[in-house]
Structure formats: structure tokens, C-alpha cells
């Protein structure tokens, strides 16, 4: 998989709610092969406080239309700048980076579990799995009804379960409280979200002998394994989140 630096053209900037938006980016030529779980390093110019690139999961990937989508939460100056991009604007990115989620074995039943912005890599994963004959179940956790993101998009690829912390939609509580998790129906869980959520889920999976892969978010310098800034402490020593990850089997983490 060859990595590249490219200016992609913004072809859609869709506001989902006060905090979130999706960016559709189109390449002028064929895209490289991208796998679910991989990410892109985005360059945000025009501010001395956004000196380094920012990593974003590939939220969706459509090679037939040369399109990639990112799901972005506005958290600071960089993402604020991105939120103002208009159709026709260019965005410089390095992609595809990192490893990817591993495919389930034949007959294995996957559960995709995402919290908040952590749902980002799971849409592409759901599309990928359903296109390969798997029937993923998808468990998404949000703070409240207003913050639910792209429910209908996930519905295209499997059964979707929702939890909200205040109970304004779906099951009340944390994602880890949802009965679908304890149904015993899944052989492998793919997870992305806030670290406490991923740790709780990893713990649950370990106790129930379910395979679990998590996608980690660490501060990154280069994104290509050169600066060694984004390391995670694993059973095999310090590994780079950008090249050895971002997807790790929880058995390799010291959680």
C-alpha cells in the first residue's frame, strides 16, 4: 500500500450538529487502496498553533467515485478551520496510514462498538464487512439524543443499537451497559471511542473470551513512524500508534 501526499478537493461539508461535521474529499484520479481503521494526516494551514498535521480516521471510502469522508469533531482551532472549508477548497493529506482492523474469520460474528467521535472508523468498517458477507451488529454510544451521529448511515450495513447517557434515545447509560454486549452473540468486537470506554469494553471481552480490537488515538508528530512520539506501551515494548497501530488487539496492550 503506497502512501501519498495529495491535495484533495472538498466536495461536501455537511454539518451534523453543533459539534460535528463530515467532509467529503475527492481526488482527481484513482485513490490508493484504503482499509478500514486506516487514517490520514491532514495539514491545516494559516495558524502557528496548527503547526503539525492532524490525524483523522477514514470515515468512509468510495474508490468508484474517488471519494473519502472524514468525521470531524470541533475541538480546537484546527478543526474549527476545517469546519469552514467550502466546496472546491483543497485539503492536503498524507494517506493511507497505519494498519487496519483484521477481518473476522469465516462464520465469526462481529460487533462494532463506538462512542462519540470514536464511531468514525466504524462506518467504513461496517461497509467493508457487510460487503464481504459478514452481518455486523453496531453499538453506538452518545451523550444524548442530539449528539447521535449518522444513525441512518450505519443502518445500511447492519443492526444498530444506541445508548445515550441520559436515556433520551435508546438504552440509557454507557455503551458497556447495553444488553447486546452480554448477549453472547459475538466472537469479535471492534471498538473505538474514549479510552475509559475502550478499556471497559476490553475488560469485558477479556472476561468473556471475546476477541477485541481497539483503535487508539494518540498525539502524533509525523504519522509515518519516524518521530516515535505517538508510542503506546505494549507487551512488546513501546510501539508507534501510527505504524504499528492505530488498531491493536487488546491482548497486546497493558490494559
Amino acid at each position, binding site marked *: 500500500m503506497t502512501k501519498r*501526499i495529495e491535495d484533495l478537493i472538498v466536495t461536501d461539508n455537511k454539518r451534523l450538529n453543533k459539534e460535528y461535521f463530515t467532509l467529503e474529499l475527492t481526488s482527481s484520479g484513482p485513490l490508493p487502496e484504503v482499509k478500514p481503521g486506516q487514517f490520514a494526516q491532514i*495539514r491545516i494551514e494559516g495558524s502557528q498553533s496548527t503547526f503539525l498535521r492532524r490525524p483523522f480516521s477514514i470515515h468512509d471510502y468510495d474508490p468508484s467515485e474517488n471519494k473519502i469522508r472524514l468525521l470531524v469533531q470541533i475541538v480546537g482551532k484546527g478543526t474549527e478551520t476545517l469546519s469552514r472549508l467550502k466546496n472546491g477548497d483543497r485539503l492536503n493529506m498524507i494517506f493511507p496510514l497505519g494498519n487496519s482492523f483484521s477481518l473476522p474469520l469465516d462464520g465469526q460474528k462481529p460487533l462494532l462498538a463506538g462512542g462519540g467521535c470514536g464511531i468514525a472508523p466504524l462506518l467504513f468498517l461496517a461497509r467493508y464487512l457487510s460487503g464481504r458477507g459478514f452481518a455486523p451488529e453496531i453499538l453506538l454510544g452518545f451523550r444524548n439524543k442530539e449528539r447521535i451521529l449518522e444513525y441512518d448511515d450505519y443502518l445500511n450495513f447492519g443492526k444498530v443499537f444506541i445508548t445515550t447517557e441520559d436515556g433520551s434515545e435508546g438504552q440509557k447509560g454507557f455503551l458497556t451497559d447495553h444488553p447486546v454486549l452480554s448477549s453472547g452473540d459475538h466472537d469479535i468486537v471492534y471498538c473505538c471511542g474514549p479510552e475509559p470506554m475502550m478499556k471497559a469494553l476490553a475488560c469485558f471481552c477479556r472476561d468473556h473470551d471475546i476477541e477485541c480490537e481497539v483503535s487508539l488515538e494518540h498525539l502524533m508528530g*509525523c504519522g509515518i513512524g519516524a518521530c516515535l512520539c505517538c508510542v503506546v506501551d505494549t507487551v512488546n515494548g513501546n510501539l508507534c500508534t501510527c505504524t504499528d497501530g492505530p488498531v491493536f488487539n487488546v491482548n497486546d496492550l497493558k490494559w
Partner: protein
Amino acid sequence: MVNTGFSIGDLDFRNPVLTASGTFGYGTEFEDFLDISSLGGIILKGTTLEPREGNPYPRMAETPSGMLNSVGLQNKGIDYFENFIYPVVSLFDTNVIVNINGSYVEDYVALAARIDKLKKIPAIELNISCPNVKMGGMAFGTDLASAREVTRAVRAVTAKKLIVKLSPNVTSIVDFARVAEEEGADAVSLINTLLGMAVDIRNMKPSLSTITGGLSGPAIKPVALRMVWQVARAVNIPVIGIGGIMTADDAVEFLLAGASAVEVGTASFIDPSVSVQIVKGIEDYLSAKGFSDISEIRGHINRNI
């Protein structure tokens, strides 16, 4: 056609752009983005005698026009280097330079002796300026007697070209450059990172696990340029300028200030192909100004001072 080559003694470089240690991995990380043979040389990630895990995460913080790091020389040690990295990097068609680090003079000597046996490595960069290790590193680079001792000891065991990488965290960097020259260094490279820190006010904690770290990026360029200018006037060996070089224009500033070459560092994180663009940009600058050889502009600003 302009000539941008330079030499350290009898070691020729096809152009003056090298990649700074710790910012270019072992070169292989960048092969999707550039042709390594189009660079003057690459300086590999700092190597130590024993494997090192480095410092705990978080070991990086973004700061205005720059970044702090406290990686702490994470690397797999010289045995691994000889067995698994050297066979790969020795195939690169450019000058591949190993950056060596230690806690004791004996570590540096042992490493230099090992590197000395590697045919395809023409030069050693002696790192006496890493701010992120508890023992050694910058301790050598901020004490004149220690800098002298380690340079002398390493010089005694290697015939490779010896480049001493200097720390800016001293009162007079010129004194350290002179000591390196007196002890037989073939060149000096400067500056390593400036010791700095950042505080995360949301969590009310230091941003780095080690509290302090090394500052790099455009934020340090004026400091680096000043030091390179001072050192280039004080020594007769080639000076390699490092510090916040993001563009060919930045590189040309260093050349005009007296550097024979430059190392591109943090910029490679933002654009992994930037070093080859800088090579091209320097050629374009020379052509546009009507020069045919890069040596014509070296230290040019001194002519009117």
C-alpha cells in the same frame, strides 16, 4: 547547471541537504515520498549500545510554530542495527550517517568502534546534545571538558568522518565548536533542540511526561541561525546548520550565514518530501542569482560586515 555539492574532507556530498537524526527514521519510512538518492545524505535515528525504550507517553507537545519532544532516544541498540538496519540502509545511494549516543565515554567509544567496521557508513555524528536522556547526552555537550574528552576518545577509534552535534543549551556554543575542532572533528552540526517545556492548563499538568523536552521547528530558527553564524566564523571545519528549516529560503539563510550544508528536521514530519524540494529550491536560488557553485554564497553575509 549549478554545483551544489560540498565536502567534509575527502567525503563528497552531492548536495548540501541532509536529514536530521530522529526526524527521518532510517530513511525507509520516507521512500514512498522521495528518492533518497537525491539527498546529500541521511542521518539515522540516534543509536545507543543497548536497546532503549525511551520516555513514557506523552513525549510530544505542539507549541507555537514548533514542537517539543522527549522521545528519549528510543532505539533497538547497535546489535539490532548491525543485523537488521545496516543491511537495508547500506543499499541507499547517498551518504548514510549514524548518530551515536551514550551515557558514558566508553559507550560512545564502543559504538564508534562498531560503526567504524561498517563499510557503507562514511561518517558518524557524535550526539553530545540530546536533552532527553537522564545521563549522558547533553551532559557531555554542556561541559567543555566532557565534550573534549568524548570527542578525543571517539576520534581515536574511528577513521570515519566525525561530525560533532552541538547543544544550544550553553552560554557560548563557539567554545564547544572550537573544542570539537581541536580534538579532530571533521565537521560540526548545530543546533540540537533547545530545552523547553509546555503546560497543559486543562489538566493542570506538564504537557510532557518528562516535564521538559527539546524544542524544534521554525520557532528556533533565528537562534540556530545566530549560532551557526557565530560558529562558522570561529572554526575552519565545515558547519552544518540545523534548526527550523522548512523551505529552501530557510536553508539559503544558513548557507549565507556560513553553513556548508543543512539538516532538515521537523519539516519532514509535516511534509515528508520537503527535503528534496529544498534541494531543488537551493539550485533555483543559485541559478536565479547567477551563481554556478554553492561555495560562492557560503558565508556571503560576512563580506559586508
